[in-house]
């Protein structure tokens, strides 16, 4: 468990910032993100739309809360949960042999593959450190 306070603050700002960015680019083009979700071929058209409209806001709010240090554990829990979900989704996509964009960062998205999993694992590490960090429970 990491106890170094400045490092934990850096984790909060980096992880929160990344999630805010990821959410904002998706909010700007919800239909494009809906198509990205549809490309995974796991859920239908309607569910893809609903997820594309709500998920970016979840990313933004959790990111803002984490970066600002409000409800740190709750936001770290949401972000870690999302990352576990993204990792599983990417593994399923690789196993199914689909060659698609991950849809993670809007125009900066790239092929859904092991590179994306590594990035997600790095972010998950930060998320879990923050979730289980010692200190005042707010």
């Amino acid at each position, binding site marked *: 468990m990491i106890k170094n306070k400045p490092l934990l603050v850096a984790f909060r700002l980096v992880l929160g910032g990344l999630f805010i960015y990821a959410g904002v680019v998706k909010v700007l083009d919800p239909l494009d993100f809906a198509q990205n979700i549809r490309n995974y071929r796991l859920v239908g058209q309607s569910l893809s739309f609903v997820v594309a409209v*709500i998920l970016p806001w979840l990313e933004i709010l959790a990111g803002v809360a984490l970066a600002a240090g409000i409800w740190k554990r709750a936001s770290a829990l949401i972000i870690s949960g999302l990352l576990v979900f993204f990792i599983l989704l990417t593994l399923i996509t690789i196993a199914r042999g689909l060659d698609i964009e991950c849809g993670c960062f809007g125009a900066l998205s790239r092929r859904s593959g092991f590179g994306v999993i590594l990035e997600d694992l790095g972010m998950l590490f930060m998320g879990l450190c923050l979730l289980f960090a010692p200190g005042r429970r707010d």
Partner: protein
Amino acid sequence: MSETRKIVRQVLVIGALSVLLAAAVHFPLVKRFARGEFRETFLSPTEYPGIRLITIQEAEDLWAAGEAVVFDARLERLFRESHVPRARNLPATESKLKIPPDVLELQRERTLVVYCEGGDCQSSLALAKSLHDEGFEDIRVMTGGWEEWEKAGLPQEKGDDQE
């Protein structure tokens, strides 16, 4: 225990706020969805006015008239097994797609028909978008794809590209 309950409550509040913000900010889009839009494709008619979805029957008529250029967005292996006669293979895996120069030389008014495997395949839409981005004005996506073309007993051809 109360700590866990507090975190769960906060997670639920963030979730509920996300739903509210999504509904408020995307209200016009949600209204269009409620009216029945985006049930077949997420292509916005204002953004992609040149792309239309067509049935197998319409695709067959266009193909039979010989005026449309047909593109098969499936993988090369599947294309070689069998495809719509005279179709060009442009495997449109969503992560990378380049339109070959000879296709770019086609007149932008030409009618283009694109298809993929069928079912919930999405690569024909990706190809249609790329063609639209290159300036093509009349792109028809054959919903039902190869699966329904084959099921309908329509003509087939084996082997590599004919063009």
